[in-house]
């Protein structure tokens, strides 16, 4: 005789109720139209939150969105914190970068090795009073790399949060990678810019205009062949090196420009064209001077970067101005409609060392440009506020340099170089001339969350458009329904009434599966749907095992109850063994995969467990219930 049928029935009803409850959020939420959802969000935000939070999450491949894997650019970090950088340094750095693509070893170690091959020691570039010993420096560098990664993670979290993506996901992977998932983000470029931007904000003083002029002329001379003749093979090597730059790192400038010979319209020295197609660096003048300062043609921007790589040029700069950089500014907006070779970009010769950095910024606000300022009107701007220390430094710098221009530099590009009118005590600055409110907003986000201490590269990117996502959901849904119908039909025909009970168990199975996923806030992906469909096919297995066993027992002549008993108990062991192995495979898959595949492993694992429960516990209780109430007289199986 069956024991505790009532208790068991109650348990089952309880389970049904529980999972129906867990699922109802999803059903409710998805039955509302977009407008209704928006309305609810405004009118009753708490309820909206609750519905959203407890609904089944759709993966990126179903709702559309971006999945990015970023790796911190240790190479850039090492370059940044090094002193006395010379040719050997850069050579070793490039060589290390190449090898790092293949190797698993830490970049710092590879770099160290390359430096040794060049015959130099780490201490030449990184040594200080505290760190003189090679090993000390090595571990210091590694620690720097480690810490910067963690900081990057925090900062990215801030940024992406402010991006307004619902449930953005940022996870650290391994020891130097970050995985970012932006659901529903369709404007890829904007997302990429936001995530990849270093947003290194610096304030640097400009060098004297005469110094700038001299540097420009000397470089011009050199480029037009009037200067010291260079070993062309070395120059070619430089060119090749710079044209292979990995452009997935920070700056917006494209280094893959097309070097062209343009008609010379120089305002200063006359040209003697030495240009050949192999040395686009050389040829006509690069810099032009006017009353407002130095500039270059916009079409020459790629060339400019190549030229800046040239060690001879670096030498010239150092001789004339000491530690200095030459940076580009933004093109004059009024020349917007002219072709690139008639547009000019201002060039600034600035101190290499920033007078102030962006790490002391506490707030940044986007605004519409003030109507009072002709430069700002019609455009947008971002207001900055510094912290106490920043305000102090800012006051000091502005106080000591009244009348001189201070360049505001973002990501190596000079946004503007306003002249310091007077000492700014209250720690507020403004970056004006931004083209759109989007730009102002993004700039504010980026500045507020602070600068990334090391640029991060995107090493993997997967984007699914929303149209594909919708298609996938539809197809998945249709397949699931079709599969369910066919399997259920088969069970009904083959096992008659018992088959019907198995079908009931199957539906309950899916209910539990989906409810569990909602409760765990698990993500449903396309492979996940496939996993659900697979579960449908596999779930009947347990039932089949049991039913076949029961059939056998009945044939031997055992009574209905005895057959039931033996059938279930004997089959249980088999079911357990068989499902455990599939479960093991699913666990391994969960560990190996990420994203969509994880979704598949999850649905498989939950599905297997649920199917065991429904097959063993639920159908048996149903049988017992119906038999004992004499609703079912014989086993229809």
């Amino acid at each position: 005789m069956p024991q505790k049928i009532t208790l068991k029935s109650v348990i089952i009803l309880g389970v049904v109720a529980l999972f129906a409850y867990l699922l109802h959020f999803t059903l409710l939420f998805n039955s509302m139209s977009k407008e209704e959802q928006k309305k609810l969000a405004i009118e009753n935000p708490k309820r909206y939150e609750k519905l959203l939070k407890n609904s089944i999450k759709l993966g990126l491949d179903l709702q559309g969105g971006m999945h990015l894997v970023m790796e911190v650019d240790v190479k850039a970090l090492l370059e940044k914190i090094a002193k006395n950088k010379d040719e050997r340094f850069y050579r070793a750095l490039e060589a290390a970068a190449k090898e790092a693509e293949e190797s698993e070893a830490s970049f710092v170690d590879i770099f160290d090795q390359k430096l040794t091959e060049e015959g130099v020691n780490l201490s030449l570039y990184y040594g200080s009073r505290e760190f003189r010993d090679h090993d000390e420096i090595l571990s210091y560098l590694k620690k720097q790399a480690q810490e910067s990664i963690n900081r990057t993670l925090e900062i990215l979290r801030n940024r992406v949060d402010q991006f307004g993506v619902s449930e953005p996901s940022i996870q650290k992977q391994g020891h130097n990678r970050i995985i970012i998932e932006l659901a529903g983000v369709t404007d890829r470029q904007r997302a990429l810019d936001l995530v990849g931007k270093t947003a290194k904000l610096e304030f640097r003083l400009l060098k004297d205009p005469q110094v700038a002029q001299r540097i420009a002329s000397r470089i011009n001379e050199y480029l037009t062949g009037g200067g010291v003749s260079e070993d062309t093979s070395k120059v070619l090597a430089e060119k090749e090196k710079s044209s292979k730059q990995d452009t997935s790192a920070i700056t917006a400038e494209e280094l893959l420009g097309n070097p062209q010979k343009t008609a010379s319209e120089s305002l200063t020295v006359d040209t003697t064209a030495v240009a050949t197609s192999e040395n686009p660096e050389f040829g006509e003048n690069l810099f032009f001077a006017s009353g407002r300062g130095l500039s270059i043609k916009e079409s020459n921007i790629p060339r400019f970067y190549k030229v800046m790589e040239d060690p001879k040029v670096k030498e010239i700069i150092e001789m004339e101005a000491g530690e200095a950089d030459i940076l580009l500014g933004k093109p004059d907006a009024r020349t917007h409609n002219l072709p690139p070779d008639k547009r000019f970009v201002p060039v600034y010769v600035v101190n290499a060392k920033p007078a102030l950095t962006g790490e002391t910024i506490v707030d940044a606000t986007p605004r519409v440009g003030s109507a009072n300022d002709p430069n700002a009107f019609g455009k947008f701007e971002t207001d900055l506020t510094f912290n106490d220390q920043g305000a102090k430094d800012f006051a000091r710098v502005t106080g000591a340099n009244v009348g001189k221009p201070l360049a505001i530099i973002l990501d190596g590009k000079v946004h503007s170089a306003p002249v310091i009118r007077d000492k700014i005590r209250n720690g507020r600055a403004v970056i004006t001339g931004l083209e759109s409110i989007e730009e102002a907003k993004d700039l504010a986000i980026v500045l507020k969350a602070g600068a990334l201490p090391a640029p991060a590269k995107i090493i993997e990117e997967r984007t699914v458009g929303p149209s594909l996502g919708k298609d996938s959901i539809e197809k998945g849904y249709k397949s699931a329904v079709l599969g369910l119908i066919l399997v259920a039909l088969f069970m009904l025909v083959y096992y008659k009434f018992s088959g019907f009970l198995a079908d009931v168990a199957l539906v309950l199975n899916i209910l539990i599966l989906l409810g569990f996923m909602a409760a765990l806030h698990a993500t449903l992906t396309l492979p996940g749907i496939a996993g659900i469909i697979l579960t449908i096919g596999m779930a009947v297995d347990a039932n089949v095992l049991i039913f076949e066993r029961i059939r056998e027992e009945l044939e031997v002549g055992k009574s209905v109850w005895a057959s039931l008993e033996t059938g279930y108990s004997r089959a249980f062991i088999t079911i357990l063994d068989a499902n455990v192995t599939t479960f093991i495979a699913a666990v391994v898959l969960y560990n190996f995969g990420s994203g969509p595949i994880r979704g598949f492993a999850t649905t498989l694992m939950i599905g297997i467990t649920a199917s065991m429960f429904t097959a063993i516990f639920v159908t048996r209780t149903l049988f017992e219930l119906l038999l004992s109430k004499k609703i079912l007289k014989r086993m229809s199986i």
Partner: protein
Amino acid sequence: MRFFKRPNIDFMNSRKLAFIISGSLMLLSVISLVLHGGPRLGIDFRGGTLIEVRFEDKANPTAPIEVPINKVREAMGRYGLASSEIKHYGSLQEISIQTEVKKGIDLQIVESLQKEFPQYKVIERRKETVGPKIGKELVGSAIKAIFFSLLLILLYIMFRFEFRFGVGAVVALFHDVLITLGVFSVLNLEVDIPVIAALLTIVGYSLNDTIVVYDRIRENMKKKVTDYAGVINDSINQTLSRTIITSGTTLIVVVILFFFGGEIIKDFALALMCGVIVGTYSSIYIASPILVEWEARRKPAKVKVAAKKR
């Protein structure tokens, strides 16, 4: 309703034939794989960029159109990407492009296609970019995952049954995975992460069948055994109904996925299909006969090569 009323097929008798068939299939798979230099890896493993675009007629979005691949290739050629892999994907108006070059190019691809086909609207459906380093890492983890699961399963079976059962199971699984890879190689299909997921699923699932048979064998072994092969035969026959039905229902479901699940899931479903079919076959004709052969080498008297007819 019954498919088989008391089946009494002599499986063990035909095991030599089965070994030959399996052996040849495995050999064919190996040859194909060697000829192709390994399985054809998708961008997940070799790095690169995959873009899937859909063309729609601007005037009439729902009208089906055929997009000529050579014109797409021309457009790609302008960026030095003429040697990319370009093919129709699902329908004649959807194109998938795979290139080696990683980045910055992708936006230009859509733009340049739009310029090339101004009468159509070019929609980017999805894009995947995988750096070479990540690709290599994924290959490593995939291989580790497959071996690790095989190991875990071997241990589990050894724990629940005996060592020889474990050997039989693992050989059968290895056979299943190899032949599935062989099928992919012969059909020149790409192996990417979902396919590896399917392989791992097959590893777990194919074992289902094997265990059900083993379980019955174990049960039947409790009685006195004079005819080893006969016992195994009986066990298989007794569980035949269940084996066919379960594989059948799973197959139904996977076939539905293959035909209705969409392009993305197609290869994944195909791998599962192969796995289910080959897996069922291997439970009967690989896993079990190995037990017989094992026993034959241990106690030749107990095994009769020609099983008795009942």
